[in-house]
Every structure is written in structure tokens, then in C-alpha cells.
């Protein structure tokens, strides 16, 4: 019996292994989506032409008219939506979306440990705005449910962030507001640039965003907005010499680098300048001796949205108080 069975099992297994997935394969997720199954009646008259944009996954996303019911799957997306004046069009958010205040009142559809597809479907969105923080599997499954999903790629420069604002403006029918916002942000950045152009000293800055292990705190390395904004605000980022984007630095390296300023991006988790002064070994650092340890709102450098410019201004003021008297 086993001889026959073994042969059968082997044959069938090989057959399945050879053509199993493709035999059951259905066509690739179509790039052109049918309108969401439960598309609500648009409250605005549709624009003349449909909105066609390519998203961060290289998908072509088509909206018949600007989105009126948007679910945001990333905190930065929520901030952008509100900033371009589309706040009233947002109907759902992820757990981390805490800004602006009004967003916290919206129903959540999931967060760090996973999203609930049915909670998203129940909100009947005509657009789901995802981010690089969301895995492609989530995008695919929402797409399969007939939803229109646009994945906003993470910007790496301020210019790319502006482009994202304009994209969200287009998707929500707020092009004019988005353009005005970008203009005002550019003007604010230019004002900071003009002041910083005069500086001769570029103080060294250590920015920590997690010091659970004070002997090896985490800091922003090259390629992050934390690094970019510190440099742009006229500082020298200690983390810039490290390898990787979100990296640990040893206390030894930190003592050698001896930063003039320490910024506590982890102040939201209870770190204070007083606590830093009591950490073993940290008393040797100039920043601690000179009392130049400051709490900092990490959202202003970690969320790739319009508040990065707030972050730039605050950094410039902390690094060069003499210019902002």
C-alpha cells in the first residue's frame, strides 16, 4: 500500500510544486480599479477630467473626481490632508494620527499591529491614502476589496515633501490650497536659510530619539530628515558620521564627539535634561556641563509632512538663538 501511495504522493506533489501557484493564479491586480463598490455620491461636481497619478508603488491610480471620503493610514498623511485643507474630507485614520487635534476625533482603522480591512470598508472611503510604512500586502488586499488606494512615498528631501503636498492637494481637489501652502513653506525655509547663511560656527548636535539603553542611544543617521534639518539649521549632526538611518551610537563614541547640544526627541517618553545629567558617564559631555540639553518634539522631524518646516525653525532657534532675538 505504501509503495503505491508513495508514488502517487510524490507525483502529485511534484505536479503541484511545478504548477500549483500558477494553476490557481488569478490575473495580477488590475491597475485600473473599478470605482469603489460603495462610492458615495460626490458632493462636489466632478472635474472635467479624471485624476490619474502614479503612486509610490508605481501603480497608476485613477480618481473619477476628487476624493471626498479619505482614510489615512499614516500619521504624516493625516497631517498633510489637514494642512492642504482637506481635513473635512478625512473619515478615518490610523492609531498614530494624533495631529491636528481634530484628527483624534476620527474613527481609527488599525495601527502598529495591523489594520482591520472591514473597519476600512465600513467607512466607505473613495480613497485610502497609504504610506511607505504600510506593507504592500495591505495595499493589495484593500485593492482586491475594490477600494482606491494611493501610496504616498516617503520623501527624502523638502522638495519631495512639497511634491507630496501637491499630490494630496490634487487627489482631494485642493490644488490651490496646496500650492499656497507650498509657497508659504518655501518662504519660511528661505527665511531660515538667509539667517543661517551668515553663521560662522556650526555647533555639533546630538539628537537622541530613544535612550532606553543610555549606553547606546538611537540617533538619526544620514538620509533622515533629522540629519537634513540639523544641517540646514546650521548645525553639525553627530549621527551623520554613522552608517544607517536610525542608528545606535555608543557612549564612548559620544564622549569622543562631545556634542555642544543635546536634543531629546524622546522627551515624549519622559526623558528630561535633568535625567540626562544623572546618566552614568554623561556628565563628561560639554552639552550637559553647559546646560544645553533641550527637549524636542520628535514629530517635527520624524513625520514627513509640512511640520518639518516647524522643526527646521525650532532647530535653528535652538542652535543659533543669537539670530532670533
Amino acid at each position: 500500500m505504501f509503495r503505491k501511495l508513495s508514488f502517487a504522493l510524490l507525483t502529485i506533489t511534484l505536479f503541484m510544486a511545478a504548477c500549483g501557484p500558477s494553476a490557481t493564479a488569478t490575473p495580477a491586480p488590475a491597475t485600473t480599479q473599478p470605482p469603489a463598490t460603495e462610492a458615495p455620491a460626490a458632493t462636489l461636481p466632478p472635474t472635467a477630467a479624471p485624476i490619474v497619478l502614479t503612486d509610490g508603488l508605481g501603480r497608476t491610480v485613477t480618481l473619477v473626481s476628487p476624493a471626498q471620503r479619505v482614510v489615512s493610514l499614516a500619521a504624516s498623511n493625516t497631517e498633510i490632508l489637514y494642512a492642504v485643507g482637506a481635513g473635512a474630507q478625512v473619515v478615518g485614520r490610523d492609531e498614530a494620527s494624533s495631529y491636528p487635534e481634530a484628527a483624534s476625533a476620527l474613527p481609527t482603522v488599525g495601527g502598529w499591529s495591523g489594520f482591520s480591512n472591514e473597519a476600512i470598508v465600513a467607512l466607505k472611503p473613495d480613497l485610502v491614502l497609504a504610506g511607505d510604512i504600510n506593507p504592500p500586502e495591505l495595499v493589495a488586499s484593500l485593492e482586491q476589496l475594490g477600494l482606491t488606494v494611493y501610496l504616498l512615498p516617503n520623501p527624502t528631501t523638502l522638495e519631495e515633501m512639497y511634491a507630496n503636498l501637491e499630490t494630496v492637494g490634487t487627489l482631494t481637489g485642493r490644488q490651490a490650497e496646496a500650492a499656497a501652502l507650498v509657497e508659504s513653506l518655501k518662504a519660511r525655509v528661505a527665511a531660515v536659510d538667509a539667517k543661517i547663511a551668515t553663521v560662522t560656527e556650526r555647533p555639533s548636535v546630538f539628537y537622541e530619539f530613544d535612550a532606553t539603553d543610555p549606553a547606546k542611544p538611537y540617533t538619526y543617521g544620514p538620509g533622515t530628515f533629522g540629519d537634513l534639518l540639523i544641517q540646514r539649521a546650521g548645525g553639525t549632526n553627530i549621527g551623520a558620521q554613522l552608517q544607517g538611518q536610525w542608528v545606535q551610537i555608543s557612549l564612548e563614541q559620544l564622549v569622543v564627539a562631545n556634542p555642544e547640544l543635546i536634543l531629546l526627541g524622546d522627551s515624549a517618553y519622559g526623558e528630561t535634561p535633568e535625567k540626562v545629567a544623572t546618566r552614568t558617564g554623561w556628565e563628561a559631555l560639554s552639552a550637559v556641563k553647559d546646560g544645553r540639553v533641550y527637549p524636542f518634539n520628535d514629530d517635527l522631524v520624524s513625520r514627513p509632512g509640512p511640520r518639518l518646516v516647524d522643526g527646521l525653525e525650532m532647530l535653528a532657534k535652538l542652535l543659533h538663538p543669537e539670530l532670533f532675538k
Partner: protein
Amino acid sequence: MRRIPYLWTLLLLALAILLSIAIGSVFISPADLWRILTGWLSATSLSESLQTFAFIITSIRLPRTVLVLLTGAALGGSGAAYQGLFRNPLADPYLIGVASGAGLGAAVAMSIQWPYTFWGLLAVPLAGFLAAMLAILLVYFLARLGKTVPTTNLILAGVAFSAFATSLTSFLMLRSTGELRRAFAFLLGGFTQTGWNPVLTILPFLAIGLGFLVLSGHALNLLQFGDDQAQQLGLPVTRAKTLILVAASLATAAAVSFSGVIGFIGLIVPHVMRLWFGADYRRLLPLSIIGGAGALLLADVLARVVMAPQELPVGIVTALAGAPFFLWVLRRAKNQGYW
């Protein structure tokens, strides 16, 4: 009398299926459920709010329920087979490397940026499946001694390989600049892919693997006497062991590929069934398959609602809710020397 165990487990399974369809992060009242059902049966069109609920049930909860059911069935059945094969109460479907192999394969696949295409999206489950099967092959041939495959060798080779693969996976995860959560979700078990595609893809593997296991109850009964005795009783021991191993691993690897490494179900469900209904493998295997499906469905319902609308990795729930339940069953059992 012999039909009673099936009655009980099938009732449990039916209840679990019902709960899995009725309960989710979006509340659908029993009255609405009833209206949807009667609407379907009488082919009348539903009101707009009911249409959304109906869509949630048919397009989200139903495929997920079937996927969870199949995964639980695979883990329960393979767990029973592994325990019988290794004659070891600590054996579970991951004993000789399926989980660590799949985890490594998935972690490697996740470290690559795949294009957003059908095959790109299939890369992670496919890599998980292939790596799991490769792991089994490797362990099997490493454990081979001449023409026999001693059980102890298999276990030891499996444990050593698992430690190696797990370390490599941890290293890859530490090195990755991307989302660690994705890898964690796989290693803790979770149903990230939705729709019918995953169900259709794993179904053939499960049908073959579990179908074979159901038929191998008699062989497993003989194997409980030890290899020599089983041989004398007319069982081609090495061939039988190899086949059972392949069938159980095939089912497990297919299940793991789409739902990640869900612990505890494959270890505990066979024990509960054994405590309740006895150790005859001809009955234990189908009962473990049914019980595994029911248990995982219940765990998944919990995973979906405990922190709704967030979903917990189901692997956390299986042990968190399953361990106290098992200890309760163990304490109550009259046949303490059951193993």
C-alpha cells in the same frame, strides 16, 4: 458511541465558523445578520447599509474564515502526526525546521524590494514555502544513517538547524532598514493576505498532505510499538515514516507560507483530543484536524476583537488563551497516564 467524538468536535467547529463570520471589528448585529441571510435566500435586494455589511461578510470574513480554518486544520493534523511519528509529547509541526526555514525564507524575501505585481506580492509566501520544504529535506538527509532515519537523529538535526536558521533570521531583521513589523508579523503568525487567492493556493497542498495523514492512522498506531515491532508487524517502517513526514511537512509549509508561524495549535490540539477521546491515531488524526481548525478560528476571532480595530498577531493569542485552557483540560483529565 464511536461517532460521539466527531459530533462534539464538528459542533465546536461549526460554532467557531459561525463566530468567525458573525464577529469582527465592525459590529454587525444578529438582527442584521439574519436580514442579510434571509435577503440572500429570498434573493431580495438589501438596503444600502446592509449591502456594506454583506460585502464585509462575503469579501473579508468568509475568505479569512476559510484560510484560518485550513491553517488550523493543517497545524492540528500535522501536530498529531509528528507526535505519533516521534513518539514524543513535545513534538509539534515545527519540530524539525518547517517554521524556522519558512521564517528565514520570508525574512530573505522581505529584505528585497519586490515590484508591485502578482509575483512580487507572492514572493514572501513562496519563499517561505520553498525554504520550509528545503529545510525539511536538509534535516532529513542530515539525519539519515545508511538506509534508516533514526528519530533521535531527526529531532537533533532539526533542533540544530532551527537554531541556525533562527539566528540568521534575527540577524537579517536587525540589519534590515525597513519595517521590522512585517517580519515580526510573519514570525508571530498573522493573516496579512486576504481574498480567495491564498486559500486556492494552499488548498491542493493541504488536501494531499492531510488526506494522506488521515489514511495513515493505522501505520502511526503500529509505530507506537517502536520501529522493530512495527517492522515485524508488517509495516515498511522507513518508507511509512518518510511519507508521513513529507505529508505533514507539506501541509504545514503550505499553511505557514500565508499565515506565518502560528505556535501552540499544533502542539496542544492533539493533546486535548488525546485526553478527551483516546490515543487511537485512526481517530486522533481526523479529530486533531477538526479541532485545530476550530481552535485557530476561535483564537483568530479573539485576535480580531481584543484590540479592535487593531489586529493582534494570532500567534500571541493561541498561546495566551490556549495555554490556560490546556492546563485546565490537563488538570481535569482522569487518564493522567494517557501518553
